[in-house]
C-alpha cells in the first residue's frame, strides 16, 4: 500500500514540477511548487522522517513560498512569454549537462549493487532525531544559526535602500 502511495506521490511531484517550470505566470508556478513540496513532504514521511516532513511543510511550503508569492505580488510581475522563443543556444548547455548527469546515474545504478536494494519500512522518532542533532552535530547547529543571523543582517541591509552611497546617487540623478 505504502509503495503505491509513494509512486503516486512521485508522479504528482514530477508532474507538478513540470507544470511549475513551464507555466508563464509566476504565481501559478509558485502554487504548483507548493503542491510539489506537499508531495515531497509526504514522501519524506513514507521514508521514515516525520519530523523532516513536518518541517518541509512549515518551512518550505509555509514560509519560503509565502515569501515568494509576497515578492512576486509586490513587484507586480507580468506573465513572461519567453518560453516560445528559446533557442538552441540556451537549450544546448542544459541538454549537455543532462546527458552527463544521466550517464553518471546509469553508471552508478549499474555499478553499485546497493542501489538495487529495497528501502524497508523505517521510522525515526523525533526524540532520537533531536538527540542525534544536538549530540552529534552541535557545531553544525551553531554554524547554521550564525548563517541565518548573518543572512538576516544582509537582507536587512539590502532591503533598507542599498546603503547611503546608492541613495546619494539617486538623489543626485534627480
Amino acid at each position, binding site marked *: 500500500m505504502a509503495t503505491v502511495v509513494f509512486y503516486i506521490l512521485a508522479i504528482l*511531484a514530477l508532474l507538478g514540477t513540470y507544470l511549475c517550470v513551464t507555466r508563464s505566470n509566476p504565481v501559478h508556478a509558485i502554487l504548483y511548487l507548493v503542491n510539489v513540496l506537499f508531495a515531497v513532504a509526504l514522501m519524506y514521511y513514507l521514508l521514515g522522517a516525520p519530523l523532516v516532513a513536518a518541517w518541509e511543510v512549515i518551512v518550505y511550503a509555509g514560509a519560503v513560498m509565502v515569501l515568494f508569492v509576497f515578492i512576486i505580488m509586490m513587484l507586480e510581475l507580468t506573465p513572461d512569454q519567453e518560453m516560445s522563443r528559446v533557442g538552441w543556444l540556451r*537549450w544546448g548547455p542544459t541538454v549537455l549537462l543532462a546527458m552527463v548527469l544521466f550517464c553518471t546515474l546509469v553508471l552508478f545504478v549499474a555499478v553499485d549493487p546497493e542501489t538495487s536494494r529495497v528501502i524497508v519500512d523505517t521510522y525515526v522518532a523525533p526524540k532520537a532525531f533531536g538527540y542525534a542533532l544536538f549530540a552529534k552535530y552541535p557545531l553544525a547547529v551553531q554554524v547554521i544559526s550564525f548563517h541565518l543571523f548573518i543572512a538576516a543582517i544582509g537582507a536587512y541591509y539590502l532591503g533598507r535602500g542599498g546603503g547611503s552611497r546608492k541613495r546619494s546617487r539617486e538623489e543626485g540623478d534627480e
Partner: protein
Amino acid sequence: MNVPFSHLLIIAFLLFLMGLASILVRRNVIRVLIGVEIMLNAAGLVLVGSSALWNKVDGQLFAVFLMAIEAAEVALALALVIYLRRRKGTLNINAFNEMRG
C-alpha cells in the same frame, strides 16, 4: 514500502533536471530562484532516502541543515531581487552581467 533505491534516485534525478533546465533556460531572476528550490528539494529527497536505506539518522539531519541554509539563501536572494529591481527596473538576468558596483 517496497521501493528500490534506484527508483528514488531516478525520481530525484528528474526533479533535479527540471530545476536545472529552469535555471539555464529561463531569464527571469524569480524563475532561476524557483529552479534552485527544485534542485535543493531533489537533493533533500536523496538525503532522506539514503537515510532510510542505511537506517541511519544522519541523512535526515543533513536534510534539515539543507532546509535551514536554503531558507537563509532565499531571504537574501529575494532581498537582492528587490534591490536589483529598484536599481535597473527589470528582472531579466542579462541586465545584471556587469560587476561594476
